[in-house]
């Protein structure tokens, strides 16, 4: 089994323009999708994020950490939420990603996690 990050990427201006009714439907659909992930036994973790304007960038590489207001990348598209699932292979992950994308009405990027180190490490 492999864990995959399914991250939702979208334009926050477009999100703001979504009607209350559509928003409520997306919430309900995502809720149903989350329940599906759990009953299929592939759920690891999931969450929706606050807007990118709430982000803080931290650079701790130097002597004292530097804090900067705002998201890491100055783009229009930001990650809005994500799921982590544990499935057999990419085909299975893509099927869930398609269903998740439909539920939240956003584009989903699928990325595998690095495999865990062997048990005797």
């Amino acid at each position: 089994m492999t864990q995959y990050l399914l991250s939702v990427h979208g334009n926050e201006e477009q999100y703001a323009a979504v009607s209350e009714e559509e928003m409520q439907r997306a919430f309900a659909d995502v809720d149903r999708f989350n329940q599906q992930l759990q009953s299929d036994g592939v759920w690891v973790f999931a969450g929706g994020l606050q807007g990118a304007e709430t982000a803080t960038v931290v650079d701790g590489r130097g002597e004292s950490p530097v804090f900067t207001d705002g998201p890491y990348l100055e783009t229009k598209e930001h990650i809005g939420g994500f799921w982590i699932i544990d499935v057999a292979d990419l085909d299975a992950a893509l099927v869930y990603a398609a269903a998740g994308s439909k539920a939240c009405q956003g584009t989903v990027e699928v990325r595998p996690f690095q495999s865990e180190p062997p048990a005797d490490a």
Partner: protein
Amino acid sequence: MQVEQRTAEAAAGVEQVFRAEYGRLIATLVRRFGDIDLAEEAAGEALLIALEKWPVSGVPPNPGGWLTTTAGNRAIDRIRRERQRDTKHRAAAMLYDDTPPEPTGPVTDDRLRLLFTCCHPALAPEARIALTLRLLGGLTVAEIARAFLVPETTMAQRITRAKRKIAAAKVPYRVPEAEDLPARVDGVLTVLYLIFNEGYLASGEGEPIRAELTGEAIRLTRVLHQLLDEPEVTGLLALVLLTEARREARVRDGMLVTLADQDRGGWDRALIAEGHTLVRECLAIGRPGRYQVLAAINAVHTDAPSTAATDWTQVVALYDQLRRIDPSPIVALNRAVALAELDGPSVALAEVEALGDRLDGYHPWHAARADLLRRLGRSAEAADAYLAAIELTDNGAERAYLARRRGELVGAER
């Protein structure tokens, strides 16, 4: 001298066998070891051993079996060596290997799994083509780079990156489930047809036709046809055979010869007969698709003794059917070209003009328009259209043909 020549011949014979067996060999090794790089390295080592032994002891009765056994042993040796050197690293890499081979339904040829892996929709289209030619066709990276006119390092990176994604993201190594099969088969057929077309109307300044690509596309389509009983697969095989049958007549003296002017006596009758049988076979199933309809159109053309004697009503009817399956402007353009033979160039030109905003950057649109204008006696406009087509074409034989046509127009010498 004689000995050297005999050695060279023997080596060429070994390489021929190796090339023919390569796809099956790699596919079996990937299933067994779950690692494409390891499979390729082991296959390469087996080739070196064969080159050493076969010229002396003769080609074994079952060369494919011999190569599989030898390469399998090499792979095991390699795993042992690497395990001693770096136990932990290797153990991590071998995690992918812990599942027994899954049944693939009615067919169990490993090449089918490999084909679906190479043509996986999660890979970039150009990577799918390169991987298919490398792993199933057994072409070298240098050969593929040459065929697609990119530097060898670029092609090597493209292939390496795709293989890394297959391993890291776990692109599965299996034939898709029944409900996903039609869409995934379509993806495989697209790759095979792209390979064929790149050979049949090669881009760039090199050879106008690259027979190694058309030949490889046909060979792989034949393999797929043996393994998978799907009418669209049969349709594609018929289509490429009926197209390939006209190859010799299609370029003469470095110049493209259009269907109307081709020496029909120079068409390959054996390929045409085989293509016609396949077209009948797949259409009888009653599940038509784009490749079957394209094959049927080519069957009508290859059935006719001349352009004039071609059943154009049938051709236009088939394009109508194709348009319902694929409503693209390119299909509409091809239909309009056929319509010219039925309803005349004026009716056809009106249809072609209507596609202008969508096909302005597509050289066949300009070429078709130029031809229709020429037939209508609108020479000055035809000359301009030929020029636009020439500027957008990089196939040398096609440029030569278009330039000749343009040169024939009075008042368009320059």
